[in-house]
């Protein structure tokens, strides 16, 4: 219980349209899962519903993190309990300096004022992993950042906040190959027995740099197929068409192995 993240029969809708239609998935610490799916299959809805975006409403099912019901918590409480979401489109917050923001977020995560020296040491170390210079954290939060910089910033936050479960919503989209390598390096740095990671992606590309333990395929709001890393390779070669055709009969029970 204490090292699992369970999504049970999750139904969620956006503006009265049901997007998730009974999704089941269990992630244990130490595991990296990849969730792949075509456009409109519900990938981003899942990411937002897990974090508690008020625009998305969960109509049925449960989300349990370490046995606790996340649906009863506001987004900030979910984060303080150890959940992290790397956004697909991180928004800009003008006038808020990234370093200040990171410090406040880290304080919130640990529930006390952390030692500034320790904080800056850690920040410097993580920035090195991500190939960003000191100027980066002096800028305002995502303001005027390129797409690649925004994604690096998400990974930097993830490394700083030490989450127990991390969800990455299409972090690879729009990245060139160098940025993708940097981002992957950050994830591999974090990977280990104390964290469970869910990588949500449209393309197999990122999985060449981060080898997942499990791959799931999401079609029309449900997981229709699960397998190992080779499933992603198969998808890359054959596209999503074969799976959507095959999906109908399997869809009822989308449980992972």
């Amino acid at each position, binding site marked *: 219980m204490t090292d699992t993240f369970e999504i049970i029969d999750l139904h969620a809708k956006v503006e009265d349209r049901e997007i998730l239609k009974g999704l089941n998935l269990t992630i244990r610490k130490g595991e990296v899962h990849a969730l792949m799916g075509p456009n409109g299959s519900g990938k981003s809805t899942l990411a937002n519903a897990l*974090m*508690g*975006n*008020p*625009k998305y409403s969960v109509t049925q099912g449960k989300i349990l993190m370490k046995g606790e019901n996340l649906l009863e918590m*506001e*987004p*900030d409480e*979910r*984060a*303080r309990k150890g959940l*992290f*979401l790397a*956004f697909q489109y*991180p*928004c800009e*917050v*003008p*006038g*808020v300096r990234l370093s200040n*923001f990171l410090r*406040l*977020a880290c304080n*919130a*995560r640990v529930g006390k004022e952390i030692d500034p020296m320790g904080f800056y040491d850690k920040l410097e170390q993580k920035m090195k992993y991500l190939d960003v210079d000191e100027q980066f954290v002096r800028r*305002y*939060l995502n303001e005027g950042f390129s797409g690649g910089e925004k994604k690096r910033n998400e990974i930097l*936050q993830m490394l700083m*906040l030490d989450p127990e479960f991390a969800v990455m919503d299409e972090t690879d989209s729009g990245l060139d190959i160098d940025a993708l390598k940097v981002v992957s390096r950050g994830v591999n740095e974090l990977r280990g027995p104390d964290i469970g990671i869910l990588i949500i992606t449209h393309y197999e590309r990122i999985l060449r740099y981060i080898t997942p333990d499990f791959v799931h395929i999401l079609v029309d709001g449900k997981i229709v197929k699960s397998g190992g890393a080779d499933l992603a390779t198969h998808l890359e070669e054959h596209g999503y068409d074969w799976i959507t055709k095959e999906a109908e009969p399997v869809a009822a029970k989308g449980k992972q192995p």
Partner: protein
Amino acid sequence: MNAPTTEPILGGTYKEGFHDDIKALHKVPKGPSHEVIDYMCDVKGEPDWMRRFRHRSLDLFLKQDLPAWMPGLRDIDYDAITYYASPVEKSARRWEDVPEEIRRTYDKLGIAKEEQKLLGGLGAQIDSEMAYHNIQDSLAKKGIVFLSCDDGMKEYPDIFKEHFAKAIPPEDNKFAALNSAFWSGGSFVYIPKGVKSDIPLSVYFRINAEQFGQFERTLIICEDDSFCHYVEGCSAPVYTTNSLHAAVVEIFVKERARCRYTTIQNWSTDVYNLVTKRAFAYKGAVMEWVDGNLGSKRTVKYPSVYMVGEGAHGEILSLASADKNMWQDAGAKLVFYAPNCTGRINSKSISGHGGRASYRGLVQMNPQAKDCRVQVNCDALILDPQSRTDTYPTMEVDGDLATVEHEASVSNVSEEQIFYLMSRGIKKEDAVSMIVNGFIEPIVKELPMEFAVEINRLINLQMEGSVG
């Protein structure tokens, strides 16, 4: 009457809302009358030209009507207001010589003696008169003059007369006329040629009396190649009646000189704040207004720069926060009378709890203004549906090759931003406060440190309970 009043008009968050029982040495009958002017002139021992000027100004005030575009001021009862009251005889140069009861007031406001160490000079006005005015020896030795405006008139009569009412004559507007009739206190600053006053001169204005009119007058003269930074703050008790603050500030920035004038206005919501501020910038001069309006019932104030010499630069940073029961009608004016001048207006306003913030601005390019450039940005942030913002920009371009850029935006604190910050463990109210403080950051970072801290504190207080 003795107990500090903390009537929670602002939800009890306005910590300057107390008043102290301070005995007035001089007090005149209510209402704007020629008798009051004569009394003031006698008490102050003023020259005849000033007496005549005051009487003429009162006639102008009584004749002049309010401009049609200036709404929300018709309910001021001028006859209920006291036009001169002073608890002090003259302005002290040593803090110890300030009467104890007034020192207590300033202690409560945190204008402790320590502040002098950070400042080049400190002045403190209570009601009509300056209780304290002093300048550091190092600045005085350079020839910098920092006096109450009344003392400036007496000690430097020629310089005073040459500049007084030359930027803002009493004919300019009704409240300039009112100030010209009853002016008292304020500062007289003179920076000689080539002298740089590298530490700010600071003045704090306090209204303590009830139903009172404070009419301070400030005159700043920066001679060629000089520099001056002048900083003012203000507050008043919370009563159930209204007071009036109608100041006039005139600044002359001579060739290649630079002047920065910073205001943090935090009047209680009893105060009508109707201020005329104007600077003349000569050849190559730079004038900067940093204008923060956080309090008052109603503010009508558009700091202006008249660029009268070639290559002058005028800059106005305006920050207004309109909380419950407030209407901030703030803005800026840039008037170009010479070639190759540049100007910039950057205005940010926040309205919450039903407050209203208006930007009213004028950019005027006269025929002499060849090759001038001006950029205007005004951004408004609205915290809840009860609050309101308006923008009234006026551009009059009559020059050759003038470049005028204007950008305006209105935004709400977005759900998306709040969610993003909350997803990092930050509580909702802290997230909102971060977004708002970030919005005003470009202006706050221009302020001296103590003022920046104070602004953030005040904004956070006003934020409480907004954005459900």
